[in-house]
């Protein structure tokens, strides 16, 4: 596995960083707009953004005075998406199982 893929997986291992990526998937956003979505400080968000940028998953745009962050589509290719999915495989599925069992409980 190459080094950039290693960095990408290290970056994706963190739930806050995955949530930031999910937010940026909706469109580019400023650091303060991203920070407003999370119960952590702006410097902490900036650190997460730096990790994501170093991993090649996001990039910084230059628009006059503002520097919004946006997804770097080529950074999240299908191989990476697939492996990120594998790393969440059982936790995600057991969450879904818990929801499924809850729904069954509600049924008459």
């Amino acid at each position, binding site marked *: 596995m190459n080094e950039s893929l290693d960095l990408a997986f290290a970056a994706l*291992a963190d739930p806050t960083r995955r949530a930031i990526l999910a937010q940026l998937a909706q469109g580019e956003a400023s650091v303060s707009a991203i920070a407003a979505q999370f119960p952590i400080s702006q410097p902490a968000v900036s650190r997460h953004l730096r990790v994501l940028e170093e991993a090649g998953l996001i990039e910084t745009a230059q628009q006059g005075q503002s520097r919004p962050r946006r997804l770097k589509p080529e950074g999240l290719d299908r*191989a990476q998406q697939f492996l990120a999915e594998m790393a969440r495989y*059982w936790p995600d599925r057991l969450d879904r*199982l*818990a929801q*499924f069992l*809850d729904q069954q409980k509600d049924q008459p």
Partner: protein
Amino acid sequence: MTASHVPVFTISRHFAAPIEQVYEAWADLEKMVAWSGPAGSTVELVSGELAEGKTSISATVMPGVDAMYSLCLWRELRRPHRVAWEQSFCTREGEKCSPPFFDEWPRTLLTEVDLAEAEGGTMLTLRWTPIEYDEAGLAMFVKQMASMEGGWGGSFAKLDAFLAQG
């Protein structure tokens, strides 16, 4: 590499549901397909059946991505305590293959789900063991599973020894 070096991924979860109901969620195909795919996906049976000693081929369909096919050999169905099966990625026709987009992954994984009544609900323990693999696939498995919650079963000394082999 000897079998004792194969890493086993273990995850446990308590469910506030009776053991029979949790067992059915795994062993009843209709129920299993309702929850077992990734979020946003649907899982469909292509052929075969979920029965001890039988195989099944199922498709996971997600928007914008080619369907992924899984071949399962159902090893053990012991109501209401245990379900164990071998699982591989496969073609629609059931021929084992690499996962989509990536070569480095164990060819076949054994999944063992053990259930026990606990605290008015059910404690589930799941073990995931590569049983058909090459070195690169196993190394990728170790790396990916290390980032999952739950942690590794067995001795960390063994895992360390395995990782030290590079």
